[in-house]
């Protein structure tokens, strides 16, 4: 089935299809867990999930990163250890990246 995204109705069909797919990914895990009992092992799995996800997101960024990204990571960790504040730490990381890119062109 072909749709023409340059027409309003074609674009509406495409956005609708994307929206349904996106919403299904958001609710399917939630829905399936209704049938899973939260045993200690399931709890251990869900507890370990955030750090596993964060490792998965950060690893490729670190692997493809240069001096600017590494300075950003270092600044983020340093600020977090100092002030224990998520957002402040993220700002410090972003600022370090901006300084590296603006002044050294990394």
């Amino acid at each position, binding site marked *: 089935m072909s749709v023409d995204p340059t027409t309003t109705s074609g674009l509406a069909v495409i956005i*609708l299809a*994307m929206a349904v797919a*996106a919403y299904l990914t958001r609710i399917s895990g939630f829905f399936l867990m209704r049938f899973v009992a939260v045993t200690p092992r399931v709890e251990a*799995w869900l507890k370990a999930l955030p750090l596993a996800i964060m490792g998965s*997101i950060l690893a490729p960024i670190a692997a493809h990163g240069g001096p600017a990204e590494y300075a950003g990571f270092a600044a983020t960790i340093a600020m977090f250890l100092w002030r224990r504040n998520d*957002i402040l730490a993220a700002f410090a990381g972003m600022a370090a990246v901006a300084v590296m890119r603006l002044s050294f062109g990394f």
Partner: protein
Amino acid sequence: MSPYFSRAGFSRGFFEGIGLLPGMIAFGIVFGVLADGVGLSITGASAMSFFVFAGTAQLLALHAWGAPDLLVAVVVSVIAMNARYVLFGAAIQPWMRGLPPWIAYASLFLLVDPNWAAAMRERDAGRHDIAVFVGMGVAFMIGWIVGTAAGAGFGPLLGDPRRLGLDFFLPAFFLSLACGFWKGRGDLLPFAIGAAVALVFERFVGGSWHVLAGGLAGSLTAAFLPRKAAT
């Protein structure tokens, strides 16, 4: 403890989300500029941002814009990029258990990475105020649409948002959350296995399957290995 909604929780989440808006708006601008590039109007791009609300999935969909089987291509883009949300939803379910279903399913429309991570932080702190998650999601939705409209409208005049490090905001936020989750050496296992598996998948599979694969591998290893050693 059963979950609840409070006005105080909503504003706490909302203002925490506002703190993250620079990154969200910058990301929205990037999408808006690219959407403008394939010929989407401000309205079209903003509508997509509202209904789909998934940055990386929308960016990937734009890459497919010239494809003959566009409908299939965009749906595949969304599923590949959002597959991690299946895990996010599974992890968040016990936290929301007991909430009226319509509230839970409506709240999940706003599920994105940072408010999921914030929900996990609240869960670990023993707090069950779902309004924190929703408030943060609403803030992101606003930033995402403002950024999209701005990018589609006059993005070409703004220059490269990368220069200002805006693209690094989300990774930095994830890293700082990971620091907060870090409790001891036992946490190295899920993080390291997740990172290693993600690198392999990112190299050989593409899309954003690496997040799903790394997340599953890291968390399952952590859930099964230590107990097996203990018994």
